[in-house]
């Protein structure tokens, strides 16, 4: 979230799209209700299904799964055509005025620089055009230059008329226009609107670009950085934000630093590539905060290797593992299944073992049968879990998963009992970026151990082996510091201290070198004190400030809110720097006056910025720095020449496309999205599989856990798996409420009872009728007796987004049949 849960109460318009927060985030959703009740806010829900979120919204509009970009672009065009965008904001806080180079173009569904063979773009073709004399960005403040971002955007969205939106999305034109009118009512200083989204946007082959389109709309409406505004991603687990911050995926180190690649041989080369430089040298320039990258990286290396890390040895950069390609879990699965890895040009054997820590890949899929087959080829599998999940029990999967005879599977499975969130101390980082401490409620049962004890015991055993036996690069492991009071089971309070960072030598005040701002050994007050000379260590620069000299701020619970806007600065700690609204400089105009004085984010009082913790330097006067401090441009990007699939989003159909792309039939799907080629990676054809299908979660269940509850209340209130089938479709096929149906995709086929509903209706796509159905994900073969069910991910495709490799769970093709009644 750029803002936070509580801030939603400050919105005049709440657009929920690609999410179903009433069902998936019922506790946070109270703030949307609060906005409705106290501000008379309008709540709009745009979704393929009419859900419990739609039930309490002021306006619901259906759309075909996977067509969100077209819908959002329709609104952007509407805002531009009707001048319902916040012009002063756009001029002050976005790159609308930046001139783009002549090499950029867009034709027939492709941007310039497309390499057909590699299915990649040459992104340098999309670069801005710097002034040849001064080498600075060229801008046209009048927004009239034909190659300024504003004009290029106008041209790009020309095609997305309300009629086209209706043809692509299936949303009736009048309904689309109603939504557009309400959403663009916030395109001014007086009103603010928020967008809440979740996995309904991320889990598409165009996921990142859908979110970008939403962000562009919010920038045009002037809603980023303002109380009541923002792009608010609702995270799917209690701590998924924390997991991502702490390097939850292969391509990042803690704090979103880049995992080094093999070709970046030394730290200097790595830092040169990673640290952005800005061409913005005029007034209103950028803090370009990532220019501090070396400080973050060196401090991380110091936190990892301690005294062994020195200036002479590049702070131990050599010991960091380097990648030679894509190691996302989808690719790891592919390697396991094929038994080989072809990264870095060579052919290497695939992995022989797999450690799955708090993850259930067979359950969460996609394409569960491929996962079962992949795990069946391993020598060993280590599962660290609270319950025996589908992955732990993959060798017991029913026949339809393609399981071989268990006796033929060589994989030795170890299930290490872990403890649940309530059975250990630690912290959660929620969607609002709050790092909140939690205390253990009960002891773990039986032999279950805490995560940190399991990790520590594995680490210490591996380190002992390297110490005894050596190896190719033992220093990589033996030099890692492990200075915990109890090295076998570190106290997480100590770990958080390490993440925050401390001074290793006295740190001097840059303004007055005679003054020492931090003495050696003291906890740092925040990332502003980090150094690139080895005098500081920090496990994650972004979290720095959570554990200063004053103590563990994640434990704070002081409910004071002097502004009444819901900042609650003394409740837990919100990264970065306890800031509650990111980019909050954009909540004020060029002179530092808040757009809406009743809802100020930060205000310039003549000496410094007050209100929320300011994003920019607190004493930098208005006009000195742009609001978007993490971007070299210093302003928000309506045009982003950085993503893998285009500087502007474009409507592409899902990988399993139910129709040709109406805008450019030759380029139907995202040309740079990724999919696999093994015999298990099958993609269906719309003739055989004519129905659009989507997957989702239910309020009553938590992922794949609830099914393990014995005599649990939650299994009582939502007893089992089902398919949601539109009433008219059910009538056509002779299916009644509760009757069993069979749904099949190119990957697999599953059966269950039908919930026949009026809440999904027939879509008219370019005049042709089309059906959508849906199914919840919470069941599998590993649940408690009476609570097993089919895995939704038997059906989902291993097709991925081009930037994050997130699978396309939300749009794929299936066929529907009536099944024989189950004989019990």
């Amino acid at each position, binding site marked *: 979230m750029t803002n936070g849960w509580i801030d939603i109460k400050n919105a005049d318009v709440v657009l929920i799209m690609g999410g179903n927060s*009433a*069902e998936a985030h*019922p*506790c946070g*959703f*109270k703030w949307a*209700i*609060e906005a*409705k*009740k106290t501000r*008379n806010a309008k709540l709009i829900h745009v979704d393929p299904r*009419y859900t*419990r*979120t*739609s*039930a*309490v919204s*002021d306006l619901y509009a259906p759309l075909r799964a996977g067509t969100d970009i077209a819908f959002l672009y329709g609104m952007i065009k509407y805002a531009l055509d009707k001048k319902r965008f916040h012009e002063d904001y756009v001029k002050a806080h976005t790159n609308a005025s930046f001139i783009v180079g002549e090499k950029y173009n867009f034709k027939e569904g492709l941007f310039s620089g497309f390499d057909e063979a590699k299915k990649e773009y040459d992104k340098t073709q999309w670069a801005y055009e710097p002034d040849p004399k001064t080498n600075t960005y060229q801008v046209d403040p009048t927004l009239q230059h034909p190659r300024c971002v504003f004009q290029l955007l106008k041209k790009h969205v020309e095609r997305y008329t309300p009629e086209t939106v209706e043809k692509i999305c299936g949303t009736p034109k009048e309904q689309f226009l109603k939504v557009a009118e309400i959403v663009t009512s916030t395109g001014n200083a007086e009103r603010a609107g928020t967008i809440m989204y979740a996995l309904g946007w991320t889990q598409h082959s165009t996921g990142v670009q859908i979110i970008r389109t939403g962000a562009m709309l919010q920038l045009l409406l002037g809603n980023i950085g303002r109380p009541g505004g923002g792009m608010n991603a609702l995270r799917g687990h209690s701590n998924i934000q924390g997991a991502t911050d702490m390097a939850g995926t292969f391509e990042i180190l803690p704090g979103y630093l880049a995992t080094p690649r093999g070709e970046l041989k030394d730290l200097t080369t790595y830092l040169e590539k990673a640290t952005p430089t800005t061409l913005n040298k005029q007034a209103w320039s950028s803090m370009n905060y990532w220019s501090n990258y070396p400080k973050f990286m060196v401090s991380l290396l110091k936190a990892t290797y301690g005294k062994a890390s020195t200036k002479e040895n590049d702070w131990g950069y050599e010991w960091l593992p380097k990648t030679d390609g894509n190691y996302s879990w989808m690719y790891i699965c592919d390697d396991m299944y094929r038994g080989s890895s072809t990264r870095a040009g060579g052919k290497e054997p695939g992995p022989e073992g797999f450690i799955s820590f708090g993850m259930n890949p067979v359950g969460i899929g996609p394409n569960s049968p491929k996962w079962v087959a992949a795990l069946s080829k391993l020598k060993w599998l280590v599962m660290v879990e609270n319950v025996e999940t589908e992955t732990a029990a993959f060798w017991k999967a029913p026949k339809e998963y393609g399981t071989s005879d268990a006796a033929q599977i060589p994989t030795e499975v170890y299930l290490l009992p872990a403890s649940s969130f309530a059975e250990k101390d630690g912290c959660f980082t929620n969607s609002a970026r709050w790092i909140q401490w939690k205390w253990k409620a009960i002891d773990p049962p039986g032999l279950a151990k805490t995560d940190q004890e399991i990790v520590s015991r594995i680490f210490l055993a591996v380190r002992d082996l390297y110490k005894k036996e050596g190896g190719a690069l033992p220093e990589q492991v033996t030099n890692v510091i492990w200075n915990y009071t109890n090295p076998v089971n570190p106290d997480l309070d100590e770990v958080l201290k390490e993440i925050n960072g401390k001074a290793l030598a006295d740190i001097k005040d840059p303004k007055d070198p005679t003054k020492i701002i931090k003495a050696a050994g003291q906890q740092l007050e925040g990332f502003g004190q980090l150094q690139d000379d080895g005098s500081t260590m920090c496990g994650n620069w972004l979290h720095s400030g959570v554990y200063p000299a004053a103590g563990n701020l994640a434990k704070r619970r002081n409910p004071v809110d002097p502004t009444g806007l819901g900042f609650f600065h003394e409740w837990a700690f919100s990264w970065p720097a306890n800031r509650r609204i990111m980019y909050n400089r954009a909540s004020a105009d060029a002179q530092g006056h808040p757009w809406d004085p009743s809802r100020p984010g930060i205000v310039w009082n003549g000496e410094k910025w007050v209100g929320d913790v300011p994003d920019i330097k607190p004493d930098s006067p208005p006009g000195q720095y742009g609001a978007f401090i993490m971007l070299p441009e210093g302003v928000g990007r309506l045009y982003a020449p950085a993503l893998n699939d285009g500087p502007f989003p474009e409507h592409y159909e899902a990988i399993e496309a139910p129709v040709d792309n109406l805008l450019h039939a030759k380029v139907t799907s995202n040309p740079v999205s990724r999919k696999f080629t093994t015999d298990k990676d099958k993609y269906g054809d719309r003739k055989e599989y004519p129905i659009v299908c989507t997957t989702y979660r239910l*309020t*009553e269940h938590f992922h794949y856990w609830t099914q393990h509850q014995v*005599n649990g*209340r*939650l299994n*009582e*209130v*939502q*007893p*089992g*798996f*089902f398919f949601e089938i539109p009433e008219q479709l059910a009538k056509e096929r002779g299916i*009644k*409420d*509760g*009757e069993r149906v069979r749904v099949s995709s190119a990957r697999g086929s599953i059966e*269950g*009872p*039908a*919930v*026949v*509903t*009026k*809440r999904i209706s027939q879509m008219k796509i370019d005049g042709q009728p089309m059906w959508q159905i849906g199914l919840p994900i919470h069941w599998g073969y590993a649940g408690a007796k009476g609570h097993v069910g089919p895995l939704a991910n038997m059906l989902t495709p291993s097709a991925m987004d081009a930037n994050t490799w997130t699978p396309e769970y939300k749009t794929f093709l299936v066929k529907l049949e009536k099944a024989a009644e189950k004989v019990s």
Partner: protein
Amino acid sequence: MNSPGLQIRRSSAQMWGGGSGQRKMPVVSKYIDTSTCIGCKACEVACQEWNDLGNVRTVQVGSYQTVPTLHADLWNLIKFNEQTLPDGGFAWLMRKDQCMHCADPGCLKACPAPGAIVQYENGIVDVNPEACIGCKMCETGCPFDVPRYAARTDKMAKCTLCVDRVDVGLEPACVKACPTGCLHFGTKDDMLALADSRVEQLRANGFAQASVYNPKGVGGTSVVTVLSHGDHPEWYGLPKDPHVPTGVRFWKNVLRPVGVIAFAAAFFAMVGHYLTFGPKKPKEGGEKSRGEGPV
């Protein structure tokens, strides 16, 4: 009896309540705003947990609703209804179904067991399992189809408005658990005022027929419900104009007083008989009274 500390205003099969009338208490009420209910069922689970109710075996038969109607082990049920609106629009309506705690409770009127159903001074209608004989007469008296017979205990069961919590100054468990704040608890006057203001807001936002459901036919209820489509309470599974059934009313208001008079007449006749003819001699061995034999 869940709350022996509260004074009783009215009691089943008795002419008078148990209170002295000296301690006045405001009538309490639960507020349900159906327009902000997200049907998450946290209230269902909280109710079962607090009241220590058994598990209900459920199966998916085509709905998000836990069970078709209230159950002896599920006193709080979100009723889901997919409603096509007259203007062609659509609404997925969710309402928390439970005992309405009528000011004029039909269950209490219909109950033949003295003290089995009571109404406390604060308006809460409660079943006293000590006195309940499990005869199911209260079912016939209830215009909302609420009381359920629990075979496990051979007693009637229904929402108590968490009188045990209310008695010590807490809100009912469902209110505590509600994540969106569509449930509130307080004095009936306060809850009605809250409901009126919400209705006003709904009317200003396109729900011209929004209203508060607090039906006169049962003297009003201690559950105040805000309905966006107030002209169609039946869409929410609520009767349009609920009344205590005439038969029950006749029993309570006419037959029972007549019965009391008849009983008194018989009693005096008996006293007269005793005075005139002397005591009756018991038979040898005698009959065992109920309850002494092996169960």
